[in-house]
């Protein structure tokens, strides 16, 4: 379970998170929507300890993420993350991309790491691309590689930061289908997204971020279909 408790986060004078609390139990998919600069991506970075926090607490399976005694490298093995930029390692083949972290972080043998990498690449539909270099693939394929690479670490949670925002429109579908598959398999996920259809259909709950606070959170179909907060209504009327 991921538990975000009254988290505040500032970049200099700019307060980006102004007391955010969110509990995500295992198996749940939560989509985070909201305008740009509302702090939704920052929240993911804080959960993964890429960014520090100013106050509050974030617990991942009861481990305090930002405590000094927490080994953050070890913690991140539990938290798979996929970014808006695909971030494929350009000097490695697709297979090496996915096998690297299991091999050097989890200290698996090369054979073991490659086996897991192959399995996860097939999982996301890249079974025929093992030896290809990522720069020769489409954005959608690169993003699916990023998902497979994260999955190869066998994470308990997936944090997805606008993973379809940098894609050409015709490639969005294949990545969303992959995420839908993960959701069906019971992966716990927090998805920052601008895909309202995906948020409504795939997630259990939707949180609407507005200026650093969660303005509304609830059942996905209800928040998207029948928002209660006027701010949410205004936002959705602009994006839908």
């Amino acid at each position: 379970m991921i538990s975000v408790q009254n988290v505040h986060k500032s970049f200099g004078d700019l307060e980006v998170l102004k007391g955010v609390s969110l509990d995500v139990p295992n198996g749940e998919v939560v989509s985070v929507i909201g305008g740009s600069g509302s702090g939704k991506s920052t929240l993911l970075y804080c959960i993964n300890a890429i960014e520090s926090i100013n106050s509050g607490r974030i617990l991942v399976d009861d481990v305090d993420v930002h405590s000094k005694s927490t080994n953050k490298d070890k913690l991140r093995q539990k938290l798979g993350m996929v970014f808006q930029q695909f971030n494929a390692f350009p000097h490695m083949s697709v297979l090496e991309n996915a096998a690297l972290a299991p091999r050097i972080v989890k200290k698996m043998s090369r054979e073991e790491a490659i086996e897991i990498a192959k399995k996860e690449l097939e999982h996301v539909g890249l079974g025929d691309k093992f030896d290809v270099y990522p720069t020769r693939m489409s954005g959608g394929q690169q993003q699916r590689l990023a998902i497979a690479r994260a999955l190869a670490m066998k994470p308990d949670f997936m944090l997805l930061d606008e993973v379809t925002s940098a894609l050409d429109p015709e490639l969005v579908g294949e990545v969303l289908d992959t995420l839908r598959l993960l959701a069906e398999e019971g992966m716990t996920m927090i998805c920052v997204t601008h895909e309202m259809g995906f948020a409504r259909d795939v997630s259990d709950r939707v949180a609407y971020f507005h200026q650093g606070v969660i303005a509304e959170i609830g059942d996905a179909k209800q928040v998207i279909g029948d928002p209660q907060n006027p701010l949410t209504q205004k936002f959705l009327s602009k994006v839908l």
Partner: protein
Amino acid sequence: MNSLFTPLSWSDTGYILTGVWNTVTISVVAIVIGTLLGILVGFLRAESNRFVNVLLGGILDVFRSVPLIIQLILFSTFVGAIGHPLGPFVAGSIVLSIYTMAFMTEVFRGGFEGVSQSLQTAARSLGMTYWQTVYHIRFPIGLRAVLPSWLGVALSVIKDSALVSVIGYMELLRTSEQLISRTQQPLMILIGVGLFYFIISYPLSYYGRRLERKMAL
């Protein structure tokens, strides 16, 4: 015909080849040491705060701005004056290596700084440590990116090694100068020596470019 001057003969080949060998030796030493130190200091510069960088940058600028020939003479005279004279090869290797390092540092710094932050964040998000990220992501990507600039510096070091002759190292240029004063055939000898520099540099240039194509990202 004045007997002081004797024409170039086949028996001079061994002498010239010694010069070729010495040029290759000191160039390889300077390129290898200069590259290794350049990677180290370049990485340091890419990672350091402003203060360290201004300091390091200032020191390196001295080595990059003062003509190599002056550095060679100053260093060689200085170590002699303080009572630890070094042979021309050792003194020349030290000065040429540091000179090379000063240029290589900037080459590698640019390479390391060019590796995108988000790529490194992605690596860290997989649980990789800082040093694992440096070793598996930043170094290989940064080093590949600067291969063409590295090649340029390495080629110029081979040519600059000719200056080590001023402190008495018997490299290609100095052997040729001595042959010229003996034979009085400067044109032919200089053309020959130029050809030798080309023969030494060309393989590096050729394989460098091939490697570059092979490693293109």
